[in-house]
């Protein structure tokens, strides 16, 4: 039941994404509103499925690739819906909804069977550590989308040919503000996620930090965002530079999350494709 529910949300995200894409082409408001409705229904079903699986499995379902990709997709959609509400920026959906759908469909192709929980994961640190990181990552996913939009719009204004993109994308200012806002929300989540992970590692593996590939890449990601935050606050990095760093930062997140699991074996290998 929960597996079906989690997988059916993919269809809602697909329709939502298509409606948002239709919106960016035709600029028909109705399409964006309908798209948002599909995303809202999708995310609600998703949450119900998540809770259902929690009770069925007996642990927080964020332990394997199916579960974590699914949870990530849900977080992205939720964070996007909040951002859209805050900034009244429908067009953002044309960039974020397809991204959420991509994670969702990736998840849907994984086996959804409930496996026995690895003993090391059986801890109340699991939900805290993993959820903090995924929600933080979802916030950075929105910053990534805003970053791409910023670069597109900036190019349009700089090269002085004001076409379809110029008309459709919002002001550079609001895109930069989303970038900053996401950083101030995402960075503390990322930091807390890494700290709780470290504490948990001390309990589980007997060491706060063991330079396992996932830890190393988390640190790289954290340093990237720390540099961006520092640059913003001290010398006023903004605009193009901030947008590029938000994009690079999200790529680092993706590598930490997926690349490390699939390519670099280590202590964190719970979410490999076979899992």
């Amino acid at each position, binding site marked *: 039941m929960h597996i079906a529910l989690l997988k059916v949300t993919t269809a809602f995200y697909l329709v939502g994404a298509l409606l948002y894409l239709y919106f960016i082409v035709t600029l028909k408001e109705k399409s964006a509103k309908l798209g948002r409705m599909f995303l809202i229904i999708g995310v609600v079903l998703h949450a119900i499925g998540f809770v259902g699986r929690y009770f069925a499995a007996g642990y927080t379902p964020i332990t394997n690739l199916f579960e974590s990709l699914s949870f990530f997709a849900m977080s992205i959609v939720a964070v996007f819906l909040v951002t859209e509400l805050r900034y009244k920026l429908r067009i953002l959906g044309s960039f974020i909804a397809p991204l959420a759908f991509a994670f969702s469909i990736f998840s849907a192709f994984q086996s959804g069977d409930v496996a026995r929980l690895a003993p090391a994961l059986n801890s109340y640190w699991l939900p805290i550590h993993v959820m903090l990181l995924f929600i933080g990552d979802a916030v950075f996913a929105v910053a990534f989308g805003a970053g791409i939009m910023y670069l597109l*719009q900036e190019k349009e*204004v*700089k090269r*002085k*040919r*004001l*076409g379809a993109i*110029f*008309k459709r994308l*919002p*002001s*550079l*200012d*609001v895109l930069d*503000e989303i970038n900053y806002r996401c950083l101030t929300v995402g960075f503390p989540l990322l930091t807390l996620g890494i700290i709780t992970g470290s504490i948990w590692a001390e309990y589980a593996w007997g060491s706060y930090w063991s330079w396992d590939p996932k830890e190393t890449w988390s640190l790289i990601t954290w340093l990237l965002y720390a540099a961006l935050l520092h640059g913003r606050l001290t*010398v*006023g*990095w*903004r*605009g*193009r*530079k901030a947008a590029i760093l938000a994009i690079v930062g999200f790529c680092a997140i993706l590598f930490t999350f997926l690349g490390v699991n699939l390519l670099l074996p280590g202590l964190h290998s719970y979410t490999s494709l076979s899992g």
Partner: protein
Amino acid sequence: MSSIVIVGLNHRTAPVEVRERLAFPADSIGRALRGLVELEEIAEGIILSTCNRVEVCVLAGGDSYKGVTAVKEYLASYHGIPGDELNGFLYHYDGEAAVKHLFRVSSSLDSMVLGEPQILGQVKDAYGFAAEFRTVGPILDKFYTKAFSVAKRVRTETKVASSAVSVSYAAVELAKKIFGSLKDKTVMLIGAGEMCELAARHLLSAGVKGIMVTNRTFERAVKLAEEFNGTPVRFDELGTHLKTADIILSSTGAPHFILKKEDVEEVIRIRKNRPMFFIDMAVPRDIDPDANQIDNVYVYDIDDLNNVIETNLEERQKEAARAEEIVAGEVRSFFRWLESQQVTPTIVMLRRKFEEVKNAEVAKAIAMLGAEDPKTKKVVESLASAILNKVLHPPITALKKDVDGRDVTELVATVRELFDLPENGGNQPPAPDPQNEKEGG
């Protein structure tokens, strides 16, 4: 028969010297409207007077040709201009062409700048004056209401009015895409040029917080600053004030750049990269165009802005074809309604006339039969009614039938002539008994 007639001139048919002589100032338009509808030929009237066009739209009672002549004579006599002097400048439309013309004018398809938004407001004002002075009746009322809704459709369904087509509007549009809200932004006006002042005015009405004005002659800056409610800045202090300016409008007569790329780099560093938008209207240019390469700095010169509006104009032209389609469809549907307004009273009169004949003949027949028998009376009456209905059915159906390209006015005139129907019966209420419209037995 009544028909809609439009007589007027615009920027294409008449030079400004002629247009200004024919203009109707708002304070005397009531008198002009009253005088217009006092004419024998004219039942309803609306006068549109803008700097680009003067148009008189009337519902002419009789022949449309007479209506045109009456309006032309009225225009000439009202303004005290000999009629033949005006003739070469005036155009006139009647019937379907008049409907199309007003729809195109309100949708800004006939404007000097295609898609410019002011014209619809001006047409609405013209209608408002006519409503105020009660020179608009049911037909023109419906006509103008329809024109407003057509204009709205064109605006929402096409992109004919979507992007800026003047340099100063393009500057405002760009500023909004760079800064989002302009509420907390400051403008620096360097030098004095007409185009810069216009752009500054547009930026002020778009809500910028403040404006600084600088000029090589400080007195000039003071004077201009007063006009804009801004702050004058001495030209040699430009450097120190530049860092507080977000939008810089420049048009000095300087023979070389007054701001080099290094200067801008310096300022943007002090501003901690808060964006700056330079609008350089000067020729030769005031601001090094290479400054555009600096992050968060945007430099547009006059050619860049002209290119922007040229692209926008091309897009408008493309969209105009779609707008014309919308207008054409609306013209057909409105004109059909207009025709039905002529047909209905004719049918009513036709039927009334036959009923009168029938009633008289039935009364005569019953008197001749001398029958008191209610059954006989009933048979005679129903015989007469049946003949009447069957005879009238084909012509009424023909009148009501909707055929493209058919001249309803002519048809109605023929019917009226054939059956000797009164010319002025058009305003009488429609058939009192709807039963009569049906084919009886």
